[in-house]
């Protein structure tokens, strides 16, 4: 682990819950949630997983005119019971990367449980409620989180990185939960603020954080107003969104068209 992880200073944490946010997931959920958490918890970076072992590093990706570089950083702030891990998903050696993540959590943060967050692109309208799906790695967690309106999922297929985290944590007997926020598919690339708020509200209640959501509410309002304008300007977009609002589905072609129009307008 030593050569793969750099620790700037040992964090002052006790029985912490680790919140994992992945950059680049649908609705920009990971990056928007982590930014809010880092700001509101006044969290500082205390360590990182070094990228050369887990990313191909074949050049850089440019996003919104800015050259990006993979990050995998640990943060701690005012709360001694919360550690935040913000990262790009590893491109290679996922097992070793996730083992480093859990080793660091155990060794430096005395992590007692893990919350792995993610966005899931679905055919809901942005105006519809954004549910939170949940996966547990221990049956007892279901009772523990019963008071939250989390939707238990069924899935058989290729595992997402969060399922891999849960499985590795299960092998270490560490309780872990993945929370998947529904994201309106046409906001998957530009950010779905309502999905971001649903995840932050869960964390707020779970950890008693007392967050002020006014900045997020403003973003939701602004996004809604922009989409109202687009619907007024573009009757086809309005028809597609109305179809989703009444719970009907769109063809693949219609989905592509809606996605393109929204991305062009908001992007």
């Amino acid at each position, binding site marked *: 682990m030593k050569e793969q992880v750099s620790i700037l200073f040992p964090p002052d944490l006790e029985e912490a819950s680790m919140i994992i946010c992945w950059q680049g997931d649908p609705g920009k959920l990971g990056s928007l949630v982590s930014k809010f958490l880092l700001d509101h918890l006044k969290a500082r970076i205390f360590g990182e997983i070094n990228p050369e072992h887990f990313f191909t590093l074949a050049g850089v990706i440019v996003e919104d005119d800015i050259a990006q570089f993979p990050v995998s950083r640990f943060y701690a702030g005012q709360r001694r019971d919360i550690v935040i891990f913000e990262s790009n998903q590893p491109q290679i050696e996922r097992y070793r990367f996730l083992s480093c993540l859990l080793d660091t959590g155990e060794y430096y943060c005395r992590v007692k449980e893990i919350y792995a967050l993610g966005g899931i692109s679905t055919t809901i309208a942005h105006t519809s409620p954004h549910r939170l799906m*949940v*996966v547990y790695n221990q049956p007892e967690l279901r009772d523990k989180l019963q008071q939250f309106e989390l*939707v238990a999922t069924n*899935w058989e297929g290729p*595992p997402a990185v969060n399922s891999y985290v849960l499985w590795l944590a299960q092998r270490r007997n560490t309780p872990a939960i993945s929370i998947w926020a529904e994201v309106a598919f046409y906001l998957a690339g530009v950010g779905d603020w309502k999905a971001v708020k649903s995840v932050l509200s869960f964390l707020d209640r779970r950890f008693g954080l007392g967050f002020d959501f006014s900045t997020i509410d403003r973003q939701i309002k602004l996004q809604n107003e922009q989409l109202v304008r687009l619907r007024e300007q573009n009757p086809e977009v309005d028809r597609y969104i109305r179809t989703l609002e009444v719970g009907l589905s769109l063809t693949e072609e219609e989905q592509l068209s809606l996605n393109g129009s929204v991305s062009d307008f908001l992007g």
Partner: protein
Amino acid sequence: MSIKIYQELFLRSPDLICGWPGIGRIGILAVDYLRRAIAATEFAEIEPWEFFEPRRVVIQEGLLKRVDFPENKFYYRKFDDRDILLFIGEEQPASGGNLYGAGEKAYRLANLVLDVAEKFGCRRVYTSGAAVTQIHHLLKPRVWAVPNDSDMIAEIRNYENTVLMSEVEDRRGQGMITGLNGLLLGAARKRGIRALCLMGEIPYYLQASPWSYPAASISVLEVLNRMLQIDIDLIPLHEMAKKVNESIEAFLTNLYESDMIPPQIRTQIRDSIEKMKSIRQSSGPITEEDRRLIMEHIDELFKKGEKGDERTS
């Protein structure tokens, strides 16, 4: 990273036969058929997570039930005189941008397999794969045998339908075995363990096909039958080979009539493939130009899937 042995065994000078997926699934089909034919019992596995990505997760009502990885299992079967160990890997590992069955992970996996071979005092290790060559699919595939020790050469010469690299047309004893089949031979040589790779011939125009190529697996098993002094029934595999040949014939008929290929080229492809029915050579009777034409057009028609990369070249 570890080997999990469920059952301690006392085995008498066993041979270890290894199979992985690769071109035509020749090696894994042969070894898995052998496993069933001799009713071998599973007794150990290599934990897969450091080598492979998980394939599937099962989540039921919100609870993570299971994550499945490609399996890498050892089997044994005791016989009167000498015992047999089998190793079947469902995937060949890749690391650091290497092809399947190459790089640091593949070398580590090969060494774990050899650790088991040494633990049980294996006399010899066999691997099996594909020899991509100019052969018609209706001809009986030969087995190219490559040992890692010159002591085995004389024995190999005694087996029917088996050739050394020096006996393969234009090879002059040279070549390369890629993937775990080759790597295991090399790693075994480094440890002083005798090992032998048996490669069943597959027509080069089928190397990207989605089908298994049981005709070559049969040839490999015929050689193993004699080397291991066992007598497994190959009739079910012959029936499978017959069905695959029917699919190949149907595929080639479609290819010869395909509107996607200009008529002149279709004729050239058909003539080149048909010529191979009567003669077996690695260079000729078709030219390199014929070969290029066939591969260009056949590759377009086959839906290429992910598979291991084992071949001789």
